[in-house]
């Protein structure tokens, strides 16, 4: 019954709260990880408003759950895992369209590259974008992607192979004709 606090008097700290992260520690973690997670969310959803919501929710959940004894790399993967699960929840509820155009001010002014990349990203499925982003932008291996997405490593290899082939197929014909 350690979950039930006495009504009167100070509320005792649970083990989790006793080892809880303070604001300074959280600030360092946020500075080190938020950019890459936000870029991942914008890259996968194509929507900054969704990425913003999901990023805030990701860190909220992390602070509320606060799993004990994790090193920096594990924490980073855990944050990606929360973000990925939140995205899937949204897609399951059909809250978001698969990939929407990011507003002009979200991209640099390299228009050729922009159009090319947009059409390729739009043609990929959300899971394909997730896997390709983690593999090629974050540089994660199969085991790390499995930890960050909740998939099995063997499934990651197959899904990544298909996604890679599809992405390459979307880009190669255009580039070859140029």
């Amino acid at each position, binding site marked *: 019954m350690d*979950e*039930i*606090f006495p*009504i009167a008097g100070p*509320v005792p700290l649970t083990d989790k709260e006793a080892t809880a992260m303070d*604001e300074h520690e*959280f*600030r360092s973690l*946020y*500075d080190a990880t*938020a*950019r890459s997670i*936000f*870029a991942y969310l*914008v*890259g996968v959803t194509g929507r*900054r408003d969704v990425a*913003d919501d999901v*990023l*805030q929710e990701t*860190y*909220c959940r992390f*602070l*509320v759950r606060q799993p004990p004894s994790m090193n920096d790399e594990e924490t980073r993967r855990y944050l990606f895992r929360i973000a990925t699960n939140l995205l899937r929840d949204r897609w399951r509820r059909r809250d978001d369209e698969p990939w929407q155009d*990011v507003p002009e001010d*979200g*991209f*640099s002014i*390299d228009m050729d*590259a*922009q159009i*090319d*990349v947009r059409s*390729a*990203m739009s043609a990929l499925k959300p899971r394909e974008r997730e896997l*390709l*982003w983690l*593999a*090629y*932008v974050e*540089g994660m*291996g199969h085991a790390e992607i499995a930890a960050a997405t909740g998939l099995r490593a063997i499934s990651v*290899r*197959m899904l990544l*192979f298909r*996604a*890679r*082939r599809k*992405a*390459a197929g*979307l*880009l*190669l014909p255009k*580039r070859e004709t140029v």
Partner: protein
Amino acid sequence: MNRTWCERESDVVQCLRTGSLSHELHDHVLSCVVCAEARSAAQVMLQTASLLRVEDDLPAVSVVWSLAQARKRQIALKRATRPLIFMRALSVVYVVFSAAWFLQYFWRSNFMELLADWNVFEDEATCIAAAIAVLSIVIGAAYLLHDSRRSAERAPST
């Protein structure tokens, strides 16, 4: 046969992420279908990543921190009021069962005869105690119900 994996793929991707391919890796990519596909796919993703400007749009760390603290307090409050919710449910069950029992008891017996035979002086202490207990439970349940309604009305605005 369709190859799904190449042991040099990670080297190719690593080079693309950090700079350009060496001559040796470039030659390998030309002869390896897996690595050629990996290079094209990586280029799509890396180009997307480089085109996005995320620095200006990151939510402020203080906002995220305050949000999480508010969520934590909400969860702690919910946890702390769990025994109250349990007691509330228990009191409602008690009141309903007591009312049912009293009604059934008076329905079956002749109410006036019962009152005439009832020796108030003998059972006075027991009756007063029972009446106080029932009254306290009814008042307590009514207060808890009123309180929970008030909290529910206030909840959306917080």
